[in-house]
């Protein structure tokens, strides 16, 4: 009795009018935004972290450090939804950029602020003898940073970075504010069309959970690989 009503609801929500296609499209969009933003965030975060850490000798260096601090403060100090609205409807309004692309950029810039601080703590945790050893061999600051310090820093921060990715994935559920049909928005549309909230939202929650499980699994594999050098 209960079971048959559930099956009925699932059929109505996802199979009627091939509504599951909405859901799959939304899933694809969510993954594109999350992965794109993660990569962008790591690039921005690394540049910002190094900018904050590099020894300052020139006025230009000091200027960029201040800029980096301003960036983290502003981005961490304002809600992601407000950032989305501002950038989509104000900054990029005249450019008519694809909303998914804007979402990737905004979430990337947002994530970059958090990643930069994670990365900074990772770099600071690497023994300063590592930088000295690289420099003493004749490598430049950036060569040493790129080949010796950052790889060790990333290993240090991988669990925290995984945390950031999981939060980022879930945060993309507000992308609907700028007309993006992500997983959450697609589900809302299914709810409106099928007059049932229970099944679609439960499926939505489970889907996010499954993606997070997948991320956790991937991270574990990656960490095990990076920890090879720790074996004694």
């Amino acid at each position, binding site marked *: 009795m209960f079971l048959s009503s559930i099956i009925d609801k699932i059929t109505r929500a996802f199979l009627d009018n091939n509504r599951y296609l909405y859901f799959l499209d939304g899933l694809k969009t969510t993954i594109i935004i999350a992965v794109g933003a993660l990569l962008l965030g790591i690039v921005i975060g690394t540049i910002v972290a190094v900018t904050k850490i590099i020894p300052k000798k020139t006025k230009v260096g000091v200027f960029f450090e201040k800029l980096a601090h301003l960036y983290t403060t502003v981005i961490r100090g304002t809600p992601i939804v407000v950032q989305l609205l501002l950038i989509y409807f104000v900054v990029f309004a005249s450019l008519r950029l694809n909303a998914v692309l804007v979402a990737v950029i905004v979430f990337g810039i947002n994530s970059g602020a958090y990643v930069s601080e994670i990365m900074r703590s990772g770099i600071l945790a690497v*023994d300063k*003898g*590592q930088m*000295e*050893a*690289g*420099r*003493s*061999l*004749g*490598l*430049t600051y950036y*060569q040493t940073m790129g*080949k*010796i310090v950052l*790889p*060790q820093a990333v*290993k240090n921060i991988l669990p925290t970075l995984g945390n950031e990715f999981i939060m980022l994935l879930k945060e993309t559920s507000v992308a609907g504010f700028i007309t993006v049909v992500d997983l959450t928005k697609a589900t809302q549309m299914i709810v409106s069309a099928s007059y049932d909230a229970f099944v679609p939202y439960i499926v939505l929650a489970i889907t996010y959970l499954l993606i997070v499980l997948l991320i956790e699994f991937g991270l574990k594999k990656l960490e095990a690989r*990076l920890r*090879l*050098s*720790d*074996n*004694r």
Partner: protein
Amino acid sequence: MITVKNLVKEFGTLRVLDDINLHINKGEKVVIIGPSGSGKSTLLRCMNQLEIQTSGDVFFEDILVDAKSNVNEIRQKMGMVFQQFNLFPHLTIEKNITLTPVLLKLKTEEEAKEDAKRLLKRIGLLDKIDAYPNQLSGGQKQRVAIARALAMNPKVMLFDEPTSALDPEMVKEVLDFMKELATEGMTMVVVTHEMGFAKEVGSRIIFMDGGKIVEDTTPKEFFTSPKSNRAIDFLNKVLY
């Protein structure tokens, strides 16, 4: 080969190096000794500009060493060995040795690997070629660190207390390797507390105290008839 002129280094109000003048010739084995805090490590680190002096100049082969322009090229010719080894823990022993020469395009990947093999064979650690630094003992790590510096074909080797972080039974293997380098004619500047090594391998002793060079003499002279009271006092405390 290395000339230090009127070198002053201050950390805040603390004057660590006080007007140091020093000339080191090719082939010399200079051993810098002195009580802790006397500025010997700082002097060594100023030579390759890991520490930048407050004033004064350092010359390498008559060229002014300048942290803003030529320091990276000059460091390639000045190998440095640290107290804490500072091997790259995320890289295999082979990669530790080959990374820099390949990255700086001084050798091809194949040449660098050949050299790494030759160096590891020489220090008896060829079987550790694919190991990571954490899998090595302290003495092995330090020998690899020396090999890593040698892979750059340096003209001079700087040693900053290379045996101070080692268990006593591992000191000898490192000193023996350094002795070998010395007999091959490598120019060496060694900051150390190993008086036996200073006596046996050193061709010149620099005794420092309070940021100044107090004695600059031969090992024989220094250990049998030190001139300054400070050196006499120091030797009384370390030779027992």
